[in-house]
């Protein structure tokens, strides 16, 4: 990393902490090593073990601090944030991936995903203002990041860029055929979620406006997450993603993802706090993990029970700090904004 970028990065870390602390978020530090993890089908984990005399305990490097932070929320610390390293295994070394990366995760109590979007809007403004004169600052990148965030629903974005209305294609087969007609090469075994990912990757993301941040909001409920169904907070109803998978009705969840400078930067939800839904999510993801041949890990046995005590409505967001560095300094490769990327260490040029 160039010295000017290292100084910019140090300033960015300082400003991130100041922003959240000034808004009454408590900074916490949680363990990187865990004996169990929240199951997420598409994440491969790093495994290690704790050696004791005569025995060993399997441990995992956390892919996100969600496991811990969600346990802290009912204990009365108020709004929380954490900045720390997270770890994701498998072939993710590329221009925007390093297996070890810095993540900012926040939880805002008594708030929904749109209030978090407002918070993030304020964060970008604050960072661009505070870092404008920093060494390593790139004026045009900062100008782009400080533009008003454009908000588009996922359904509209897919329709605008591919002509496909997700709500009209409930079955695997129907969405597959629509995507093929739109010109994508789709495998015959690809399920709804895979085709949806392909539409996003090949038809939506490359055409998102490049001159300002864009938030895609209201994701299809068929993409399995711990986000609440849209309107669940207002109506009190919880249509399960499995019903949605039947494909008759297009349902969404309260989730947004923010794109800046071509990078997927933030993922944010109105958090699911219904213990029954969380148990179902665990079962679904574990089953998928097994079917995909991912390495097995223990899951926290009492985690869903945490939500059986009084648990505040809340919104959580997670941002890749290294990617934010790329977006704010106009760099195209992550190894330019971190020290010792794993690929440079393993394969020196």
């Amino acid at each position, binding site marked *: 990393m160039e010295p000017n970028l290292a100084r910019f990065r140090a300033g960015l870390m300082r400003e991130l902490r100041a922003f959240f602390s000034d808004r009454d978020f408590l900074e916490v530090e949680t363990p990187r090593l865990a004996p169990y993890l929240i199951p997420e089908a*598409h994440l491969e984990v790093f495994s290690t073990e704790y050696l004791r005399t005569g025995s060993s305990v399997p441990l995992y490097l956390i892919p996100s601090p969600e496991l811990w932070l969600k346990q802290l929320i009912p204990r009365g610390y108020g709004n929380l944030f954490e900045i720390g390293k997270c770890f*994701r295994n*498998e*072939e993710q070394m590329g221009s925007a991936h390093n297996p070890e990366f810095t993540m900012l995760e926040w939880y805002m109590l008594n708030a929904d995903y749109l209030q978090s979007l407002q918070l993030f809007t304020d964060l970008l403004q604050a960072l661009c203002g505070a870092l404008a004169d920093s060494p390593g600052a790139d004026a045009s990148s900062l100008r782009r990041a400080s533009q008003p965030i454009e908000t588009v629903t996922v359904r509209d974005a897919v329709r605008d860029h591919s002509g496909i209305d997700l709500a009209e294609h409930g079955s695997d087969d129907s969405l597959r055929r629509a995507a093929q007609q739109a010109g994508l090469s789709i*495998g015959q075994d690809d399920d709804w979620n895979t085709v949806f990912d*392909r539409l*996003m990757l090949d038809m939506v993301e490359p055409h998102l406006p490049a001159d300002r941040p864009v938030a895609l909001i209201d994701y299809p409920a068929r993409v399995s997450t711990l986000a609440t169904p849209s309107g669940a907070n207002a109506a009190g109803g919880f249509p399960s993603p499995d019903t949605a998978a039947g494909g008759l009705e297009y349902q969404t969840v309260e989730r947004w*993802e923010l794109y800046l400078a071509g990078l997927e930067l933030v993922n944010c939800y109105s958090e699911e706090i219904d213990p029954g839904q969380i148990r179902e999510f665990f079962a679904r993801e574990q089953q998928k993990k097994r079917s995909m041949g991912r390495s097995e890990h223990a899951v926290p046995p009492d985690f869903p029970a945490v939500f059986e005590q009084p648990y505040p409505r809340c919104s959580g967001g997670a941002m890749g700090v290294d990617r934010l560095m790329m977006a704010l300094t106009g760099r195209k490769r992550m190894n330019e904004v971190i020290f010792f990327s794993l690929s440079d260490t393993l394969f020196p040029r």
Partner: protein
Amino acid sequence: MIKAGAIEKGQCLLMKDQPYLVTERDFVNPGKGSAFVKLKLKNLRTGSTLRETLKTADSVETADVFDKDAQFLYEDDAGYHVMDSESYEQYVIPKEGLEQKGRFMREGETYRIKMWEQDAIDIVLPMKMAFEVTEAEDAIKGDTVTGATKIVVIETGMSVKVPIFIKAGEKILVNTETAEYVERVNE
């Protein structure tokens, strides 16, 4: 067959029955989706570009592409006729996508060619090659503007933009990818 997640830049793949060279590769992980690899590929027969997104768990076929030395015999409508320097077997390389390279090749000379199975599909030229200037106008007297250029013709019939001091009969080094003048060769 290899997993798409193991694809490296510079590898040759067989897609839609055509040999492709991987020119760009990047991994993407949609928020809560499976991992994909985005590829930019160059068709080794036609030179055309293809963009492809694959699941990292997908299997792809590799194309058995290898190099050998061959003498360039002549060019006609069918393509560039070459002869394997060891086996004396002759091949015709289709011209599609190779037109610029063709303008740098000298009959009788030996080049690296790319083979895919039984077919010759591409010619690998050195990045820089030396050519004699066969036609050049004299520099206009008094024209001393720095960076002034003129067009000359080299021995293969190709036109190249050069600095004004280059004369007919001199040798120049040309970049075969950009077709730009590099420097004068002093012998």
